[in-house]
């Protein structure tokens, strides 16, 4: 990211100030993605619908986390913690899905009768 300025506080920590121009570009992108979400809601792509909707949503989230929440300019430690949060979300979704996709899988159906 080139549109930033680095400053130092009393403790020697780096603080990046994102320029107004960069923020403007990001918010424009977010508005564009919002209109795209609405537009795609009226286009039926069959089984691709959820994938398209999720891809747009993830793009918005990435922009917000990296730029608005300053993670792109943060220390490696902060980035690890953020990545950890998403990894935990993956655990939550992944292990719930294990249940939902295997409910019909009964090893011995006679035992349930």
């Amino acid at each position, binding site marked *: 990211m080139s549109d930033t300025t680095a400053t130092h506080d009393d403790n020697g920590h780096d603080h990046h100030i994102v320029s107004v121009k960069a923020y403007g570009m990001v918010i424009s992108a977010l508005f564009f993605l919002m209109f795209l979400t609405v537009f795609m809601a009226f286009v039926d792509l069959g089984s691709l619908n959820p994938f398209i909707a999720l891809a747009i949503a993830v793009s918005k989230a990435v922009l917000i986390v990296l730029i608005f929440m300053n993670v792109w300019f943060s220390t490696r430690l902060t980035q690890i913690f953020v990545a950890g949060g998403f990894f935990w979300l993956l655990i939550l979704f992944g292990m719930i899905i*294990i249940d939902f996709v295997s409910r019909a*899988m*009964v090893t011995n159906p006679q035992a349930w009768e």
Partner: protein
Amino acid sequence: MHTIAEAQRSAVFPEVNYLSARHTVASWLFTVDHKRIAMLYLVTISIMFALGGSFAALIRLELLTPAGDLLDSDTYNKVFTLHGVIMIFFFLIPSVPATIGNFLIPLMIGCKDLAFPRINLLSYYLYLLGATFAIIVLVRGGVDTGWTFYTPYSSTYAQTEVFYATMAAFAAGFSSILTGLNFIVTIHKMRAPGMSWFRMPLFVWAHYATSLIQILGTPVVAITLVLLATERIWGVGIFNPNIGGDPVLFQHLFWFYSHPAVYVMILPGMGVISEVITCFSRKRIFGYTFVAFSSLAIAVIGFLVWGHHMYVSGQSVFAGIVFSFITFLVAVPSAIKVFNWTATLYKGEITFEAPMIYAFGFMGLFLVGGLTGILLGSMGADVHFHDTYFVVAHFHYVMVGGMVMAFMCGLHFWWPKMTGRMYNETLGQISGILVFVGFNLTFMPQFLVGYLGMPRRYHVYSEEWQMLNVMSTLGATILGLGYILPAIYFPWSLFKGAPAGDNPWDAKGLEWETTSPPPTFNFDEENMPVVTEEAYAYVIERNTLGAR
């Protein structure tokens, strides 16, 4: 060999300390001093513990006889729900972290306060807001869903104050998140010179692991409660199958937080035990690195086992097998801790002051709680035990036998540091023994009655189970007495207790190098601590051992 009497002989109460810094009510209510906030928490959670305990007393009184002759069924549902909600969200989860942890972490790592003192105060007021919602639930007639707020009790068929009860848990959850956030940043950024990660007391490691769970898990339960409200208010199908939802999804989301929350409750307690065992056996901890990393392992693996609450709830058999296997894994780091504490005791110079009696009680009771958890974690056995008193006994052995024992242990150990006064040691020892005996008499019969098939959450039961229930109620009475004693001698010590001195137990750790009670900024500001030795650098005086 050290004695308490020797350490106290020349003890004087310091004129400058955080308690005497200012005396106005506002100076307490708007304080940003972590020690004062810890004391605010201590008073509030003690009140909530008494409230939750009074509901437990009602439950045990009702269960004295097989007939439902004290409470009707609806009221009984509300009483056990409120007992659970108050004890879990308003006592167990904040108990050690918000009180003893809040007080000690900056002292133990050698800094002036937590990283975000105002956020610390905010977390207290969020807790207070949650507690207020809980009181509103009480006043408006209670809630009957069980502390788990399972759908459809809390959605389609909710008839009681579910909204306020979930708001109570929601607010308390955010309080917990903020505390965890504060601890993580403080531990990363504010350690004294020389205080490397592997010189930190294990109490701090345990709180670090706890904080990770708090910030990673608690938002999920908060969102789950929001989803519940969304379905109830706007009719969006999330958990109700009639409108496209799935009730088991609620249980997945709820337990994703609430099982790790068990480790939020027990991990800080394990941290307390590591401090106390070393002090009263005058030994270095056995296997410091293993104990430290076992805290992190419990925190991580604890996130992967939630499905063991749902073996008979419609979860797939395959998912059950996966969760059952991982559940067995989480026993490994827990066992590492117990083995290492035991090895620490070996050839130690063991003394039996009140905190040590509580620590021994913790080790025995947590062991029983943990081992019965293995039975419940295996899918086949759980079909028999599910929703019986066996489960009730198991989690009380972990939560009360483990966590409350550890909380009392820590409170007795650091009370002299927190208040600058000594309590009556003999009464402390008697209290520890009463709690241990009363606890076992209360909950051991519940294993038996549960194994025999008595379901939990019913107040009318078969006559053949009465004797075991009478034993349980008798035990609860002794247990109650064990808790009432400290409620008398701790406040008494504030006025009449002898000055404790800086280090009444001759213990290691930075918190013992400042005055008791400490000054507002913890240490002499001109002479902040520098760490030059490992944690628990105790040395046994060999001639004392030889004399034995």
